[in-house]
């Protein structure tokens, strides 16, 4: 009696063990396939970057001649040569780009959060109409307004200066960021504003001392995106900047191609690699705020 029971218990245990083993093996296989797939995808995504990096180090006849990602001979000199490879040094171009980009980011963050605060929290006449108009600007492509805008700035005498690139950023013209922040502000409890009101805050103080610190994730997102978009912007600087001394990095990169008949591809790729570095640094700094902000939003 006892024996039979023990016997069958052992059997059950063995079957269970076998099943567990089988499941583990199939999970392992699924994991392998999943990872292989993801690694392949990553490689496809990152391949252009790798190609650019390797091309920046290759001798110039190898760039389009060889499929290998590995340069036969590493040409570090493309970097210093590229830096000084144009009539004006890249120190200048990076300086110009940083100037335009940093001011644009500051402008975007301040003006868009102002606008978003007004839409999310303040009561005023015509709010809904203003909101609808703002959302409509999201649907108009930049290229459509380019020419009318150019004419306005031409009349103002702003062409050939950085003003057309920077001033609009201080006027909350990026509806996408306004919308992003409105959505974020709306989910902050209104009782916080009310408590602050009783604590003697003006509307501006509520914005500055309560809403903004609690919205760091949205603000950081807006800052990162506007940094990337402005840094990489080619069309805007192309239209408004004509003096090579004012050029931003993307415009300068193109000069490698059009300067004369022999294009210095190696140097161009070297400078392209360098042009990505500020974006990466900026991202690394600001993504911390995104994570910290999310960790903080244990609001209740």
């Amino acid at each position, binding site marked *: 009696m006892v024996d039979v029971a023990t016997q069958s218990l052992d059997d059950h245990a063995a079957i269970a063990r076998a099943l567990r083993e089988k499941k583990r093996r199939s999970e392992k296989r699924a994991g392998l396939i999943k990872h292989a797939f993801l690694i392949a995808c990553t490689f496809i995504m990152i391949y252009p970057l790798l190609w650019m990096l390797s091309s920046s180090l290759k001798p110039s006849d190898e760039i389009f001649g060889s499929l290998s990602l590995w340069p036969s001979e590493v040409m570090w000199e493309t970097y210093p040569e590229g830096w000084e490879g144009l009539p004006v040094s890249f120190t200048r171009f990076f300086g110009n780009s940083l100037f335009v980009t940093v001011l644009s980011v500051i402008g975007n963050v301040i003006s868009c959060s102002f606008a978003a605060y007004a839409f999310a929290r303040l009561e005023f006449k015509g709010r809904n109409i203003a909101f609808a108009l703002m959302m409509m600007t999201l649907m108009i492509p930049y290229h459509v307004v380019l020419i009318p805008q150019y004419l306005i700035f031409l009349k103002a005498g702003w062409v050939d200066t950085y003003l057309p690139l920077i001033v609009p950023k201080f006027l909350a013209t990026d509806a996408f960021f306004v919308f992003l922040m409105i959505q974020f502000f709306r989910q902050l*409890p209104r*009782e916080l504003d009310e*408590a602050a009101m*009783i604590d003697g805050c003006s509307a501006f103080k509520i914005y500055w001392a309560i809403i903004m610190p609690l919205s760091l994730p949205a603000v950081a997102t807006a800052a990162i995106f506007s940094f990337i978009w402005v840094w990489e912007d080619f069309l805007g600087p192309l239209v408004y900047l004509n003096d090579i001394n004012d050029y931003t990095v993307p415009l300068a990169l193109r000069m490698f191609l059009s300067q004369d008949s022999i294009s210095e591809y190696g140097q161009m790729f070297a400078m392209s690699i360098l042009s990505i570095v500020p974006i990466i640094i900026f991202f690394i700094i600001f993504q911390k705020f995104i994570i910290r902000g999310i960790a*903080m939003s244990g609001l*209740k």
Partner: protein
Amino acid sequence: MAGVTLNKVVKDYGKLEVIHGIDLEVHSGEFLVLVGPSGCGKSTLLRMIAGLEEISDGTIAIGDRIVNDLPAARRNLSMVFQSYALYPHMSVRKNLAFGLSNLKMPKDEIERRVSEAARVLQINELMDRKPRQLSGGQKQRVAIGRAIVREPELFLFDEPLSNLDAELRVQMRVELAGLYNRLGTTMIYVTHDQVEAMTMATRIVVLSKGYIEQVGTPHELYTRPQNTFVATFIGSPKMNMIEAVVRGGTVSVPDFGDIALGGGAPDGKITVGVRPEQFEIGSSGPITTQSEVTLVEYLGSEMYVHTRLPSGRIVMVKDAGKAEHKIGDKLPLSLIPEHAHYFDADNRRLPIFDA
């Protein structure tokens, strides 16, 4: 300290009127509790006093100053919110000090008040934490601390204890009552928990659908409810309401018998209200009936017996905890006319035996 005077206060949201001309005098130094069912306008009224909600019509005065157009910050009051509304990005210390530094108060005065509040509320160890690192009860203390450091003339509370569990709620209730005794500041307190209302209030205001039903001390509300709404709203379990008819000064209460009301009641419909503890068990009273127990709720020190009268109506009767009742038992009940409440066809109290 200041009283608050509401004069024909109206609130509408567009076409929807939610507060219909309320007159109310809050005495300086009293603990006034606003109670009423959900959606009756308690919060709206409180927020209008606080200055968070515009006043559509009428006036509100704090002390002798009409505050209709005064922003919240300049009304010299503090408010404790149901969700506490602590600033999540500031430490407890900064939460307490924030309002004071907005007033440009000197640093050492802020420091003095904040540490005094921390001492009173026993939150000294929590001062450097962020609100998310606090339990519900601790958040509540901090929220109260933020209110008292301002040393206002008036405290407003909007259901401050409703997010706490039952035990903590009892504890905080005692502490709030203690705080009130110490400070003596005027307090207006919104709740829908009538135990909170009965135990803490100097006076209670019962609201329903944007109207005041009755204002009075807890004792007045319990013993002399002015209408059927207050009669059934105050007191737990509810008052038994028995509809009856008056003819020639005599009401015939179904199941029980006739009561002579004298000239106090006109002919027609009447409602006789009897609290569970106002029935007498036994057949010694002036009018009596037999009943059959259908359910017994035993609470230890007392019990509530649901019992069916001959007509099929079920009433609730309170008895001492040591009594023994079982489902199906026969239970004789007596009704003492002087103990019952009488309401006319418009649900207003008839002061028949109110000497």
